[in-house]
């Protein structure tokens, strides 16, 4: 047995995990309504931010709570198990915090991190564009030197909580290479357009954001030009994949529970639904996927305890498996629940839609496969 909880990636030591569980329990009933209405009430978002959960893995010297990767994972699983939008807020805030922690200057960290940690500031990650999804190297948003500052011009799409974020980490193109800048959303030239009716993540405040010659101070650039995608955005995305993975574990487990509860009690031809062999098989397959995803996520947690930069590939694998588990368990749960599964307020239906989105964001499944295959070729292939 491992000697320490950390070596095991074990959890349950942090009161923040219990706080997340409580918060999730309160969100369980209204989450379907938030989904239907297309937003989480602002006071709920503010309350979540104020708990300090959103960037709790930051070191305490920056105002964080030193939350270990495994505990952060449990927090994401609790939130994701009831409401992907809440988990999404955690994901984007902690992505931006992770990128700033790793690649901010001392002054930038001191300026931004405490406010992200205590939730007085909420952040969004603005990378995707019309012509740049999985291939973020194609972004065209311009970041130009202008006097003693910078001028940002472009259009970003699908920014999670872009509707409400106070500041955006924007990936753009400078004469000297791809770069990342922080843009406060109250600056002149920032226009936000809410996205509605998309397949999933309907309550996640998704917005398209137009940056129309937005002027920012030079000290809002994170890392030198050239490092914007390869270092800064890559660090953010790695962190994002980690909390998405755990959020999907939560979704998959919730779908298994809902499907099993229904199959145990609903009678079909005088016997419980779950006694029908084909229904039992759906439950079993979902349960295996969910359990496997949890173990891969725990494996990623262990790898990440070694510090920044560690566990990148393990996290990709976990996110890949967990998004698949969420989508498949969601599909199975909708099937088992029947008409109740396709109802507008169906939790399984919502998880199914949200999990499908998780198979696309933070690196589509196919991109993850390419990376994992490349790692295998590296390990087992000959040097040419």
């Amino acid at each position, binding site marked *: 047995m491992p000697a320490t909880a950390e070596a095991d990636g074990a959890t349950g030591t942090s009161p923040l995990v219990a706080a997340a569980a409580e918060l999730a329990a309160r969100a369980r009933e209204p989450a379907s309504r938030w989904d239907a209405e297309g937003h989480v009430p602002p006071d709920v978002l503010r309350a979540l931010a104020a708990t300090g959960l959103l960037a709790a893995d930051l070191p305490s010297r920056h105002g964080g709570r030193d939350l270990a990767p495994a505990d952060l994972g449990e927090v994401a699983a609790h939130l994701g198990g009831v409401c992907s939008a809440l988990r999404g807020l955690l994901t984007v805030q902690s992505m931006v915090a992770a990128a700033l922690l790793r690649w901010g200057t001392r002054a930038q960290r001191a300026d931004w991190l405490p406010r992200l940690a205590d939730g007085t500031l909420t952040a969004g990650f603005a990378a995707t564009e019309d012509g740049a999804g999985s291939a973020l190297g194609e972004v065209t948003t311009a970041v130009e030197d202008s006097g003693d500052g910078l001028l940002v011009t472009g259009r970003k799409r699908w920014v999670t909580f872009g509707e409400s974020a106070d500041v955006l980490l924007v990936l753009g193109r400078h004469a000297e290479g791809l770069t990342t800048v922080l843009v406060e959303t109250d600056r002149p030239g920032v226009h936000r357009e809410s996205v509605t009716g998309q397949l999933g993540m309907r309550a996640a405040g998704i917005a398209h954001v137009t940056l129309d010659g937005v002027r920012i101070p030079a000290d809002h650039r994170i890392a030198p030009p050239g490092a914007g995608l390869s270092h800064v955005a890559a660090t953010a995305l*790695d962190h994002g994949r980690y909390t998405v993975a755990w959020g999907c574990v939560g979704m998959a487990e919730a779908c298994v529970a809902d499907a099993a509860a229904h199959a145990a009690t609903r009678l079909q031809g005088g016997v419980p639904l779950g006694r029908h062999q084909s229904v039992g098989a759906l439950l079993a397959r979902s349960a295996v996927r969910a359990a496997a995803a949890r173990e891969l996520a725990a494996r990623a947690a262990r790898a990440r305890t070694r510090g920044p930069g560690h566990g990148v590939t393990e996290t990709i694998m976990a996110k890949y498996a967990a998004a698949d588990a969420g989508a498949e368990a969601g599909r199975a749960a909708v099937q088992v629940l029947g008409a109740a599964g396709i109802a507008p307020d169906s939790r399984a239906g919502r998880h199914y839609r949200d999990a499908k989105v998780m198979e696309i964001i933070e690196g589509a499944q196919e991109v993850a496969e390419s990376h994992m295959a490349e790692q295998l070729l590296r390990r087992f292939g000959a040097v040419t």
Partner: protein
Amino acid sequence: MSRGSAETLDEITRFLTEALRREVGPDDDYFALGLVDSLFALELVTHVEDRFELTVEVEDLDLDSFRTARRLTAFVHAKKADAETAPVHAGDS
């Protein structure tokens, strides 16, 4: 200096050759040659930090330092020399 340049260059070249699955010369710019995927830049930073027990800060992110094995070797030695002469950091906050 605790480690000879030739030894460091050799180690870095070996890591690159294994990671990129082809012989990498001391002056090959593996980024310009298109040999790396989107996650390699971070992986290289992490490897250098672990192997040579140093921390790559944002101030070190002159990407020219990371382009070739020879430049990376020079960076590692400069960084180690800094660490030996600079006062002890109380933390990076």
